[in-house]
């Protein structure tokens, strides 16, 4: 994990790490882990966001929530640790840390909907410049719809971080003026973590905090979106 801080443009403005390539998925996970305040209660969505857990230091006191009824979730279970009654939201076997607590689904989602989680980290298909999130359905007519807890997470946490690549494999922007995929939540995303940039969603539009392997100017041009600087 080595973020190249060699070419910061301005200490109080966007930091452009142009002297390096885009972040790997692992580097992105580590960056997010570093940015989560110590002592936070955090839900990590299924898929990529799960990786953030690998970079959390126990000393941070960060407590993980899994919406299927647990606070104090530990790392993935292996071998003899595997207990079919102890799984995460992705239905993979996990472990329990000291100080864990179990609760039922209505209580778990009351915790989420009631705004008690500090941060959730979600994957996304698209995020709009106003923070609309599309991450549950690609809009294909024959797709089987399956939302799970995505909509609850989107509107529930105090801070909703999205973790994704900035462009699809085909090069299409995933940060867009308005989502074309079915929405998960409206104006819910507070920060967008991508391989190429970290963007804050503010009432005044997107604010670029850092870029990786690209300048703000390049990204604005590729996305055809105007960004502000901090």
């Amino acid at each position, binding site marked *: 994990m080595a973020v190249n801080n060699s070419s910061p443009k301005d200490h109080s403005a966007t930091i452009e790490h142009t002297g390096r390539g885009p972040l790997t998925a692992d580097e992105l996970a580590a960056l997010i882990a570093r940015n989560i305040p110590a002592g936070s209660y955090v839900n990590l969505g299924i898929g990529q966001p799960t990786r953030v857990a690998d970079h959390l230091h126990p000393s941070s006191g960060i407590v993980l929530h899994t919406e299927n009824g647990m606070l104090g979730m530990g790392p993935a279970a292996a071998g003899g640790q595997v207990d*079919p009654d102890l799984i995460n939201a992705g239905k*993979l076997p996990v472990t329990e840390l000291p100080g864990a607590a179990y609760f*039922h689904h*209505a209580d778990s989602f009351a915790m989420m909907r009631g705004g008690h989680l500090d941060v959730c980290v979600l994957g996304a298909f698209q995020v709009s410049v106003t923070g609309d999130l599309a991450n549950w359905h690609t809009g294909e007519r024959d797709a089987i719809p399956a*939302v*799970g807890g995505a909509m609850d997470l989107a509107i529930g946490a105090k801070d909703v971080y999205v973790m994704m690549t900035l462009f699809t494999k085909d090069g299409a922007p995933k940060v867009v003026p308005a989502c074309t995929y079915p929405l998960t939540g409206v104006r819910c995303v507070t920060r967008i973590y991508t391989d190429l940039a970290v963007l804050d969603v503010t009432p005044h539009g997107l604010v670029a905090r850092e870029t990786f392997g690209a300048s703000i100017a390049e990204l604005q041009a590729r996305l055809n979106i105007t960004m502000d600087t901090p």
Partner: protein
Amino acid sequence: MSRTLVLDTADEAVAGIEDGSTVLISGFGLAGMPFDLIDALIRQGAKDLTIVSNNAGNGEIGLAALLKAGRVRKVICSFPRQADSYVFDGLYRAGKLALEVVPQGTLAERLRAAGAGIGAFFCPTGVGTPLAEGKETRVLGDRTYVLEYPIAGDVALIGAFKGDTLGNLVYRKTARNFGPVMATAARTVVVQVNEVVPTGSLDPEAVITPGIYVDRLVAVPARRYIVEGA
């Protein structure tokens, strides 16, 4: 003389379930799924069922077996699409199964509402998304809410850990999930546990589902089902 009947077999426990019933089935993936009760329900033969459960079955066991047996008319769930949900997928694509997708927390809260005598509630989840289309909305304070209605069952089939002869239940780790709310939300509540223990042997401070909610209880051998992925 408790109102809760402790029965010898799963078949006795599911006796009398009628065609056309709405059946609540606990579990998140396989954790907490009442396999033995579902198998007994298949033998019992009730058909045209509406199933309320978080998922729509895995492989060909549990809920998937019930679907495969052709007994289900409609599924109300949050996440039907899983790696091994091919039974559901096939029936759904063949038009043999109706589907209502509900955000996971809203599903839990609608079940709770049924159990708690709440007529309807304004919920912030899903507002502005396809799952709120056509629903009544209201702005309260600075937020928009959608009106959601209770989901009540004719029957609930629940997997728990231990029960006493009064019907008091405890669960185990994340297998707790939907069990406690579903136990409040159905006219007839049928529970399978790994062990029925004498009344007085559960800690009154740690009872999760009080016996008042449990109509029929049956002990079945613990089953070490296979953990799946998302």
